[in-house]
């Protein structure tokens, strides 16, 4: 596959700048990482509506709550890992008040790469999904990122968490794609097994599906970018039609995509769901692609897991 790669965070910054033109009530807050999160792109254009709160995330989040209570469309950005220190501010001041605050974080997951374990958060989707009112989205590419940000600026309700990355990702969606909360996209049809992925792992899953094809296994590949609310229909349909599911995510296998998918199948259509992701561990410094291999999350690992799952062999993912 030779898809173009594009930066999700640069797309975010550009889109914010464009939306700032359209929505005078749009304000953006950052905590001394705006050149990395790319909110600086907005800040340069609209300095009066851009607030660099310093290295003070708690202040940033509570201030965001006050702005939202006063009718502003609020976007809050920092690295995913640092936003987590404000879990309680998010819970009490934003989610309990059910405010329209959009947390768009970057540098999530393993693909922070060289910065290492301190910065590679792989727990955030779980932490955020547990918050009442909070919705969680993991865009797969630049096109979806743009569409998600447009959606939130135009009519997003309540608190939202959008997980972006440092690395550029292959463009997988068509230009006309429009994001809808709670709706997944089937990137490849197949009847033998379904691979449900989010974020960076979807492109790897598509590679894996090509390899599986040579082994006579026709895998369906679904981009589950909306993790909360989740597309229950697509999950149940996949369970019914393919009988087996593998989930792949740049996140802990606990409390992330794999857990959410398992909840749905357990309740509505029990089938084996095998999860691929970080196994209750911290990350490491290294290149992104090296890390995927190191943590057994590469294309070959997906192929192996899907194949054993398909053939009904014991899941040795956990021994």
């Amino acid at each position, binding site marked *: 596959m030779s898809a173009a790669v594009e930066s999700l965070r640069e797309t975010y910054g550009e889109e914010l700048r464009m939306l700032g033109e359209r929505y005078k009530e749009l*304000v953006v807050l950052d905590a001394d990482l705006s050149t990395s999160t790319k909110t600086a792109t907005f800040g340069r254009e609209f300095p*009066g*509506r851009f*607030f660099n*709160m*310093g290295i*003070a995330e*708690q*202040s940033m*989040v*509570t*201030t*965001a*709550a*006050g*702005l*939202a*209570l*006063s*009718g*502003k469309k609020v976007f809050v950005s920092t690295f995913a890992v640092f936003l987590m220190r404000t879990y*309680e*501010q998010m*819970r*009490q*001041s934003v989610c*309990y*008040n059910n405010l329209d605050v959009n947390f768009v974080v970057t540098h999530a997951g393993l693909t922070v790469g060289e910065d290492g374990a301190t910065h590679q958060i792989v727990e955030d989707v779980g932490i955020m999904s547990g918050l009442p009112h909070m919705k969680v989205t993991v865009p797969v590419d630049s096109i979806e990122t743009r569409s998600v940000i447009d959606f939130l600026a135009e009519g997003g309700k309540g608190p939202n968490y959008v997980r972006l990355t440092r690395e550029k990702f292959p463009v997988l969606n068509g230009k006309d794609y429009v994001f809808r909360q709670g709706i997944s996209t089937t990137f490849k049809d197949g009847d033998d097994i379904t691979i449900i992925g989010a974020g960076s792992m979807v492109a790897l899953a598509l590679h894996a599906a090509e390899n599986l094809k040579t082994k006579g296994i026709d895998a369906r590949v679904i981009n589950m970018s909306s993790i909360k609310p989740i597309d229950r229909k697509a999950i149940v349909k996949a369970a019914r039609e393919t009988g087996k599911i593998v989930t792949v995510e740049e996140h802990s296998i606990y409390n992330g995509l794999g857990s959410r998918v398992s909840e749905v199948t357990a309740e509505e259509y029990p089938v084996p769901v095998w999860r691929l992701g970080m196994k209750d561990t911290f990350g490491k410094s290294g290149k992104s692609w090296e890390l995927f291999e190191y943590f057994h999350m590469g294309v070959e690992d997906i192929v192996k897991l899907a194949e054993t799952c398909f053939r009904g062999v014991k899941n040795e993912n956990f021994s």
Partner: protein
Amino acid sequence: MNLRAGDGNSGEKIMEQYSVSDLKNIATAIRKKVIEMVYSARSGHPGGSLSIADILAVLYFREMNVDPLNPNDPDRDRLVMSKGHASPGLYAALSLRGFFPEILLEGFRKLNSKLEGHVHKGVPGVEASTGSLGQGLGIGVGMAIACKLDTKSYRVFVILGDGEIEEGNIWESMMAASKYKLNNLIAILDRNNIQLDGFTKDVMPLGDIGEMVRSFGWNVIEIDGHDYDQIISAVEEAKLSRDKPSLILAHTIKGKGVSYMENNPKYHGAPPASEEEYRKALDDLSGEDEE
């Protein structure tokens, strides 16, 4: 003095109607409601509500531009009760001010009532849900910034507890308020020297709060939080600040007005323990009525 709900008094009009002795009676009425609410709920935080009753009376019945008949007026003054456990005090003040019928106070801390244990936005007149300490100042900062973006002239009041300022979030927000020159932000610190586990000097010494806040670029006004002339003139002075946020450092007595609760850490978070204590509290407060 007619303080019934929905009595039609509104906005600016009501503010000039109350003399200091009226305000004192309102504060006593707030205190009595606080006692009734926590006793009926068999739980709650009387101490820190009693300490700010005088301040609440001045704010809601004299200094703040609020209208119970138009609670979402975009030009209204805002108050964030950052010390959200002072819910009985705030709920009582809002009810007496006419935001909702007094009978609803009986639902405090009970199922199927909007009067949550800690301050809840679902209650008419409440601007933000609070209860986890240290967050209300940041909310006030956001509101004060929004006020400036919208070129409005309302003021944002934030009531802080003294134990609460042990939270780092407060000092982060102090910096932000100073950076953005939020002269429309007026924080009032209820300096009653007591927090849940005991006296602040023992739990976590706070140092010279006035100097600390001043060094963060704030205007600081130190007062006796039970002296009406001082409360009123401090608020008026804060309103005149040109480019700095203001902190009114109000020295108060925790449990003020109820003899056995005054300066007693036990009543930070405990209601009258018996019918006898309950009667005694109301008797003590009735004594204040006669002034």
